[in-house]
């Protein structure tokens, strides 16, 4: 088995599982942007008010938990489809 064969295999897999890949890929888009904004804003506010960093961090993790689930739903959906 060499690299060329592997690449062919991968292409085949990609074709036959295009739907799954697309589901997960698209599902990550929104949460990815959301997480970026969320964490960025959290860091911003932590830098602005370091004394409130603990509270901001906790709230950030709650937010991450809520946003992350959307991407993970896409991941699970990729299994189901």
């Amino acid at each position: 088995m060499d690299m060329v064969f592997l690449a062919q295999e991968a292409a085949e897999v990609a074709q036959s599982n295009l739907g799954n890949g697309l589901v997960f890929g698209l599902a990550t888009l929104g949460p990815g942007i959301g997480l970026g904004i969320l964490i960025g804003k959290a860091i911003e506010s932590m830098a602005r008010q370091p004394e409130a960093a603990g509270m901001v961090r906790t709230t950030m993790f709650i937010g991450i938990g809520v946003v992350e689930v959307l991407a993970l739903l896409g991941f699970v959906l990729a299994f189901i489809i």
Partner: protein
Amino acid sequence: MITLLAAAEDASGAALLVPAMPELIWGFVAFALLLLGMVKFVFPRANQVLDDRSAAIQGKMEEADAKLVEAEEARRNFDAQIADARGEGNAIIEEAKQTAESLRRDIVAKAEAEAAAIVERAQADINAERDRALQELRQQVGAMSVELAARIVERELDPSTHQTLVDDYIQRLSSQN
């Protein structure tokens, strides 16, 4: 054939999402046992240790506070003692000053008295000397006058009678004065 992410043809992917009953039951049993073990064995001890620790810290802090109060008390005592000692020293110095003053006054008075006594004695001496000199002078004057008179009168008078005469005369003189 490699199927990495999911088996599209195979619907068993969804089977992953269906909880397996035995795992659910045994897992729950394990979790419940862990919870029970934590509540029964770990947390009482942990809380006790935390309480003990906070009590120990509290005790230490109270001890430190008490020591601080004690030290403060001791410091105040020392301060008071120092103040006392200072006052006492001042009093002693004052007393010494007073003693010295009175001593000085005594000495001065004594010296003055002595000086006065000496002066007085000297006065007395002088007086006595003067009296004596006067007496002597008087005697000599008497003798001389007798001698003079004898020479003048050319008569030998009895010196003792003359002496009486002169004395009378002088007495008269002095009483006249």
